[in-house]
């Protein structure tokens, strides 16, 4: 009899629950503070094993200790999201020690006889794929839109003796809150803009949308046209607006990683082959110097 586990080191990991085998009891292993453990306990899981990191020690350092707990219960499926490094570190140890298959982009898991049938996106979601896995599986789940609604809490099982590997973490710089993280609408601008003075045109569009202004890394880091806390991307801000309007952005993967949480993505670009159109819900192929003023005018006339 195998068990199903959810690894939680970030609140978003809880959004993996809705994609797991329907009806199967799920045990969770949490590395984090009490609030995260309590949130996990209210999601309908069967048990919550909780490791609380010592101050100055990263959650990643407890990966092996957490894996010991999971491996002690013969895991058949271990799930999490690819959000937090610590969750990934736990999965790595589990996978190696039970020689599990490791799949990512998973959107569904169901039983198929003695095997698991796994569905998900492959090649960057270019296709929907089905895999059949016969051994233990570690699955990085594409998070559902919401975590399960809070219900009756199960008790926590603390593991105060969980020993971390030698490791230290220090916060070297806290980014100043730019308002991007919580913005409902964001206008992002890239190298399609010819000069710094032209930012005024994009700012006017952002103003008519009541949106925050963001940019790609080169505009902030190389050109200095906008403050560094305005650049969105893998090593910059991560945004989850309801609307992300990309102006003159090519759609580099590093930038797109920062807007993955957007509900609707709109792209304005003169190149119909630009990668941004493959990530967008709506697009206008055209010169931003014509389209942006037109959009501003239409919004102003509404």
């Amino acid at each position, binding site marked *: 009899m195998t068990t199903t586990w959810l690894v939680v080191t970030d609140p978003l990991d809880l959004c993996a629950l809705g994609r797991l085998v329907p009806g199967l009891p799920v045990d969770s292993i949490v590395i984090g503070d009490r609030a995260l453990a309590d949130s996990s306990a209210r999601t309908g899981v069967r048990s919550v094993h909780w490791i609380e990191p010592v101050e100055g020690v990263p959650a*990643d350092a407890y*990966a092996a200790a957490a894996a010991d707990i999971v491996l002690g219960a013969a895991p058949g499926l271990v799930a999490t999201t690819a959000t937090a*490094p610590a969750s*990934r*570190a736990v*999965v*790595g*140890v589990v*996978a*190696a020690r039970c020689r599990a*298959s*490791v*799949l*990512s982009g998973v959107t569904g898991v169901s039983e198929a006889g003695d095997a698991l049938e796994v569905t998900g996106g*492959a*090649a*960057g*979601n*270019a*296709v*929907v*794929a*089905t*895999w059949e896995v016969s051994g233990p599986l*570690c699955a990085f789940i594409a998070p559902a839109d919401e975590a399960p609604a809070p219900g009756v809490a199960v008790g926590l099982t603390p593991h105060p003796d969980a020993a971390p*590997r*030698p*490791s*230290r*973490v*220090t916060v*070297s710089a*806290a*980014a100043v809150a730019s308002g991007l993280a919580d913005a409902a*609408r964001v206008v992002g601008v890239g190298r399609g803009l010819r000069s710094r003075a032209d930012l005024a045109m994009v700012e006017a569009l952002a103003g008519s*949308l009541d949106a925050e202004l963001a940019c790609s890394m080169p505009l902030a880091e190389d050109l200095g046209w906008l403050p560094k806390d305005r650049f969105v991307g*893998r*090593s*910059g801000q991560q945004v989850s607006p*309801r*609307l992300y309007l990309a102006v003159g952005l090519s759609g*580099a993967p*590093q930038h797109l990683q920062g807007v993955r949480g957007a*509900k*609707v993505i*709109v792209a304005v670009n003169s190149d119909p082959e630009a990668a941004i*159109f493959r990530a*967008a*819900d*709506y*697009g*206008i192929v*055209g*010169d931003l110097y014509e*389209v942006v003023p*037109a*959009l501003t*005018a*239409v*919004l102003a006339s509404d």
Partner: protein
Amino acid sequence: MTTVVVFNVAREPAAAQVLADGRLVWPARKLPAGEDDHAALAVAVGLAASDLVGITLGQGDPGWAAARGTSEVVRVADVTVGDDDGATAAALAAAVAEVDGAELVVIGDSEHHPGLAPALAGYLGWPVVLAATSAVRIGSDVEATRRAGRVEETVSVPIPAVIAVAAATEESSPPGMKAMLAARRLPVRDVTAADLGIAAVPAFEPTLTSLPSSTTARLIGGDPLQAATELVKALRAEGVLE
């Protein structure tokens, strides 16, 4: 005291060919470098106290790494990259074990293979720092910097360790033709799965693939004012302008 850099082991979506019936075709012979490989190599060059050995699999291009600073490349010729990051990691860990004095492994932290670097660390039994953007040696430790939410943090781990590097940008100054040609003369050691004591299992692939219901943006044409009007109307219908 050898630093290892793992490269060309991520399948980037841009390399895939999607057929009209939904089948997915990956390059059979040579994979393009992963999006994070150049950043991993740059970090590895900085961390290498002496030798820098590259490790790749059967579809890897040894010259790509040699032109960027590796002194030798080990290629596991009969293992290719599949969807199972665990299987890929097991082969890479066996290859690392073949490198004399390997104590530090640097690898690109591909968003398309989020399990690869952690599983590699798991197979090696070493700690891992994921999503690093830079790293330096401090005595017998490595200090790696990464962004976590709104903060930048520095994580210190003792060597041996795996450092998984996420590229912040595309490669700004790739080597020129002269360096690429010179790199072809540097040594490549081809090994097989049998040499490493592991099974040469085929790359793990889906049993079925199909096209998603919608794959591209709804493109709005016409003159700018007409397109803008139609877009605003569509966004109102989506409820994202309220």
